[in-house]
């Protein structure tokens, strides 16, 4: 049963610390998405990769957030320095989307981040 995996599942850190969240997309999927979920804002798209190339990160605060795909099996989302307002659940999703088309996204279980 292919699944998107995310690590860590929970992270508590202090303000100013660097946070790295990892995602392993489903093997063979060529698109990866990072979302942030909060009570106030709901689900927000932070970054979008296709074939490991970043297509859109307009939803991401550029000064402190960065997203990369070092290889096809790993996507990372970093926050440096972290702030209390970054506390949220961060989801990774992957999909198999042809160019110009769309297919469903499969979500990971999320990383619950708490910044004190």
């Amino acid at each position, binding site marked *: 049963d292919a699944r*998107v995996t995310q690590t860590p599942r929970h992270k508590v850190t202090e303000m100013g610390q660097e946070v790295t969240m990892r995602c392993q997309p489903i093997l063979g999927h060529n698109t990866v*998405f990072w979302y942030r979920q909060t009570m106030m804002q*709901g*689900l927000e*798209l932070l970054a*979008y990769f296709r074939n490991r190339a970043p*297509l*859109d990160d*307009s939803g991401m605060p550029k000064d402190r957030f960065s997203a990369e795909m070092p290889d096809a099996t790993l996507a990372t989302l970093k926050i440096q320095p972290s702030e209390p307002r970054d506390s949220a659940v961060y*989801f990774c*999703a992957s999909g198999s*989307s042809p160019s*110009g*088309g*769309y297919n*469903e*996204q*499969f*979500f*990971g*279980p*999320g990383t619950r981040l708490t910044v004190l």
Partner: protein
Amino acid sequence: AQSVTQPDIHITVSEGASLELRCNYSYGATPYLFWYVQSPGQGLQLLLKYFSGDTLVQGIKGFEAEFKRSQSSFNLRKPSVHWSDAAEYFCAVVGISGGYNKLIFGAGTRLAVHP
């Protein structure tokens, strides 16, 4: 711009009762529509999707949804709710933003089930 509205933030039903969760979308062309469910502490799981064809779509866990173009709606239904259906439900549409296809989510409807 494309958008999704879920008018009901919170719904409570009795176990065994029927359920309908409302979803309205704003999109110029034929939309790709989805319903996802999120159980507490979990990620989102796809219940069903509509791309084209039959406007009544069957999904997992006994859910179905009907696409009504004239009403710009894609309401989710279940004839008899089980306690395990208590969760948050998200409707989503694929929209074009920044030149790329993306999922645009509604705010979600939280379902509570009374025994």
